[in-house]
């Protein structure tokens, strides 16, 4: 019994010894390989990809103007002529959903970009320079103490409702959260021996941050940014549902659902179509984030 088991173990071990030097791959390639074998990641990528591509190709997929009123063709259910049906103003829901996707992607992408820049900057400075840490983190804590949606609403109230101001509001709400995560990794990395070696070799602060610390702090940040994209899309939809987001008649998923509320008995598709689109986007991003976290940073369990 034990001999058979030993033999079974011994054979592949021989193969392995010969194979290993040849199969050595670049770490980035290995990471991509692992990502593309991660089922959740692939599912998320497909879900999010469908919406992102639809948003990018909106002007080519539909020739209809999302804001064109046609009172004679209102409340048409989804069917042959109108793929997704029409709303209470006779506007094409297919066109409005596609252009709504464009707006969601644009706002989500901008919030992610703002966070990647300012979240990294604030987090890196707070984590690396002890003198700045306390002051920056107190402001950070204060901004995070506000309930997210309430702060976003208050900021849009002050700046006025517009697409640009929604981006600014969500930036103000979420940058402190990203900064916190970057700071946490920078604090750990700062104490690493290779950083001390870089200091001893005479490297300046900015060089150490740029070359030695930030590249190693990327993994948790990338994970955070994919979840953040989901939060941003969801928050934008919430703001426009409440009527404090982009101004009508701009097609937004949240706004479309708010308009559909009065007709939900007879025309439930007006709510269902943007709702499902929103859910696919958010779920795709969450799955993407889960996959990235599993592959890039298995220790990071609790998001937010």
């Amino acid at each position, binding site marked *: 019994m034990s001999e058979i088991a030993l033999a079974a173990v011994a054979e592949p071990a021989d193969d392995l010894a010969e194979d290993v030097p040849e199969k050595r791959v670049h770490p980035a390639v290995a990471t991509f390989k692992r990502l593309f074998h991660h089922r959740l990641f692939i599912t998320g990528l497909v879900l999010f990809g469908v919406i992102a591509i639809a948003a990018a190709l909106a002007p080519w997929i539909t020739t209809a103007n999302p804001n064109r009123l046609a009172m004679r063709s209102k409340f048409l259910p989804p069917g042959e002529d109108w793929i997704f049906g029409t709303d209470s103003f006779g506007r094409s829901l297919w066109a409005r959903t596609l252009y709504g996707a464009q707006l969601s992607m644009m706002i989500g992408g901008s919030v992610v970009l703002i966070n990647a820049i300012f979240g990294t900057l604030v987090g890196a400075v707070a984590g690396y320079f002890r003198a700045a840490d306390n002051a920056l983190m*107190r*402001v950070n*804590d*204060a*901004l995070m*103490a*506000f*309930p*997210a*949606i*309430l*702060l976003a*609403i*208050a*900021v*849009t*109230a*002050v*700046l*006025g409702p517009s697409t640009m101001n929604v981006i600014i509001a969500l930036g103000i709400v979420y940058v402190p959260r990203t900064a916190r995560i970057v700071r946490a990794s920078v604090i750990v990395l700062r104490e690493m021996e290779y950083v001390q070696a870089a200091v001893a070799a005479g490297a300046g602060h900015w060089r150490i941050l740029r070359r030695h610390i930030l590249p190693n702090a990327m993994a948790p940040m990338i994970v955070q940014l994919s979840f953040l994209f*989901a939060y941003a899309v*969801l928050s934008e*939809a*919430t703001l426009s*549902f*409440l*009527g*404090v987001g982009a101004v009508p008649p701009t097609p937004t998923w*949240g706004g479309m*659902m708010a308009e559909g*509320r009065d007709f*939900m*008995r007879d025309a*439930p598709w007006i*709510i*269902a179509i943007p*709702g499902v689109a*929103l*859910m696919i986007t*958010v*779920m795709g991003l*969450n*799955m993407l984030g*889960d996959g990235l976290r599993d592959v890039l940073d298995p220790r990071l*369990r*609790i*998001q*937010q």
Partner: protein
Amino acid sequence: MIGVVLRRVASAMPVLLIVSLITFSLMRLIPGDPAAAIAGLAATPQMIAQIRADLGLDEPFLVQMASWYGNLLQGSLGRSILLGKPVVDATFERLPVTLGLSAYAMVLTLLIGLLSGIIAALRQNTMIDQIAMAFAMIGISLPSFFLGLLMIILFAVHLGWLPSGGYVPFWSDPWGWFRAMTMPAVSLAMLQAGLLARITRSTMLEVLRQDYIRTARAKGLPPRRVIFRHALANALIPITTVIGIIISLMISGSVVTEALFSLPGIGQLLTQAVLGRDYPMVQGGLLLVTALLVMVNILVDVAYALLDPRVRYE
């Protein structure tokens, strides 16, 4: 123990100070003339001047700030323009609605989140685990107002089982309150329940890998005792720290839930204040709610220290 409380309160002070500074600055950041923005488009110059004088906007910046903090220390946050009453009164009038909704949603969150997280961890990589985690994924991805709308269509419009909206005070009609709050609470709880289930599962899995669990199993304790006395008791401690986040998410979520189900809570009060450009109300309400949340977080941290002696002796 008293040291923990004092330290935590002391560290909350600068946060509250900055929170109040941010809310104070909000109205001053309105582009152009805030008084004109409050008065609206149809206002005459006299009306604008009146508002400016009422709100003290014609005073120098530092004087405005001094009077804001002076009033704050006396427990006054100004008067709501739309409601014509003190902001503090307006907020506390609406608070029971939001607190009731949040408490109901919290019970659902803890029940669903903890149970499914624990079961998923104990049955890791089985069908049960996968189904629980699929539901958790739907929970964190399904927008609460979409779920709310779907429930209204099904349970209110078509089946007629539950009211589609409106508020019934608990003390006058508990059963009516329960019926009115069930759909709002379920739609509000979904996100947090999903988050909690995911966190509970991974925390539980971490604990189950520990040496003391293996020891407990090895010395022949019944599995039930290992799970409850050794695993769960230790897993719940780190989970308490996310309760603060969950409450904050719940207050955020109640804004849209209250709007959807026409519940006259804090969220609706502030949304209407924003839409009606009632800036003193927005400012004061935001500050009050945030201050309450900061206090809740202090309580959570104190509870954490009570549960985990390591935190106390740090």
